[in-house]
């Protein structure tokens, strides 16, 4: 599966995802500026992305923990998600995300 990620300068990166990995892990390992300070524990909100296009509706809904943690993210929009809480899989092939501002 592929992830289409737009960085903070508007540049698009097409990154190969791995089933079962989180989108945060894929973006971080690909060198995108994802701080992911807590390492994927849904405890810091520094892996905040906007899920664009119609991909938001294809994702499982946010857990209460993710909704709460987004309160600590900056510039939250209706399509905000924490990328450590999105799991890669074939159904998300081509998902488009934009890295949120720092």
């Amino acid at each position: 599966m592929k992830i289409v990620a737009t960085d903070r300068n508007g540049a698009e990166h097409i990154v190969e995802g791995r089933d079962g990995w989180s989108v945060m892990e894929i973006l971080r390992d690909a060198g995108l500026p994802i701080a992911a300070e807590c390492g994927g524990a849904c405890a810091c909100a520094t892996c905040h992305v906007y899920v664009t296009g119609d991909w938001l509706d294809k994702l499982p809904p946010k857990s209460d923990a993710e909704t709460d943690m987004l309160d600590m993210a900056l510039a939250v929009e209706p399509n905000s998600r924490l990328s450590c809480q999105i799991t890669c899989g074939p159904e998300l092939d081509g998902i488009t995300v934009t890295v949120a501002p720092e």
Partner: protein
Amino acid sequence: MSRIETDVAIIGAGPIGLFAVFELGLLDLKAHLVDILDRPGGQCTELYPEKPIYDIPGLPIVTGQELTDKLMEQIKPFSPIFHFNQMASGLEKLADGRWKLTTDAETEIVAPVVVIAAGGGSFVPKRPPIAGIDAYEGKSVHYAVRKMEAFRGKNILIAGGGDSALDWTINLAPIANKLTLVHHRDGFRAAQHSVNQMRELAAHGKINFEIASVKALHGENGQLNAVTLSNAEKKEWEHACDTFIPFFGLTMKLGPIAEFGLNLTENLIAVDTAKFQSTTPGIFAIGDINTYPGKLKLILSGFHEAALMAQEAFHICKPNEKLRFQYTTSSSNLQKKLGVA
């Protein structure tokens, strides 16, 4: 200003800085610790106090807070001195070969050895990505409330949905001329009683609560006079206020350590794997802040690094003494230090 002389100055009171106290203590080395937070534990207590950790040897499950509490108990016999709420801000080599570490609270710690166990850096408030916000910071945009009196009679806008945002909304409401809380949703990551109290204040017109986000700041010479708020329903509108206090928690920045003249690789301090010393003799780096071939950012790796660092710290602090390597299980000398023999 206070000037302290000790064996080792440790920057960072996270799990690795705390365990370093233990390893140094076994070798009779005394330590002072500096941390920007107001309590020990670093990321463990700031980011995930309630989250279980499963990969600490011998502790099948432990939370960040419990691990910190246990480390504090373990190092108690060595009476470490903590300097909380202070950021390590300067490092200077003295003529006698020792180091002088200074903090932003003007504490000076003079020691032959400095250990940087600063994890991902200093925890600092998250800054909303609003254009030009830096021009207002310290004048009309604040990330903390240090003196409540300074906010008396102000038209305050507080942003955020966590405990800090709620607590300060409740505390500042009686002294503010006008207070508005703005949050992106009608739900909060905060104690229920605070949420209830805030809703009560809003119901009685003591504060305003807006579900919206702050898009722009307006004012001049650092003095705010309005902000642009926006939400899906009302689109954008101007809201008059003279003080803006965003509360979005903390994030980690390397901070002044970047200016210490150390050999940095992508904001990490390069060390050797025998002593975990940086390329500057006497300056060590352990835990998440260091880098070396094969490095893993694990608490257990940091513990190992602390033990090896302490050996070399001993040689630097006590150059004329022979290091006697002993085990806590068998050495009555060590057991005496630990207060168990």
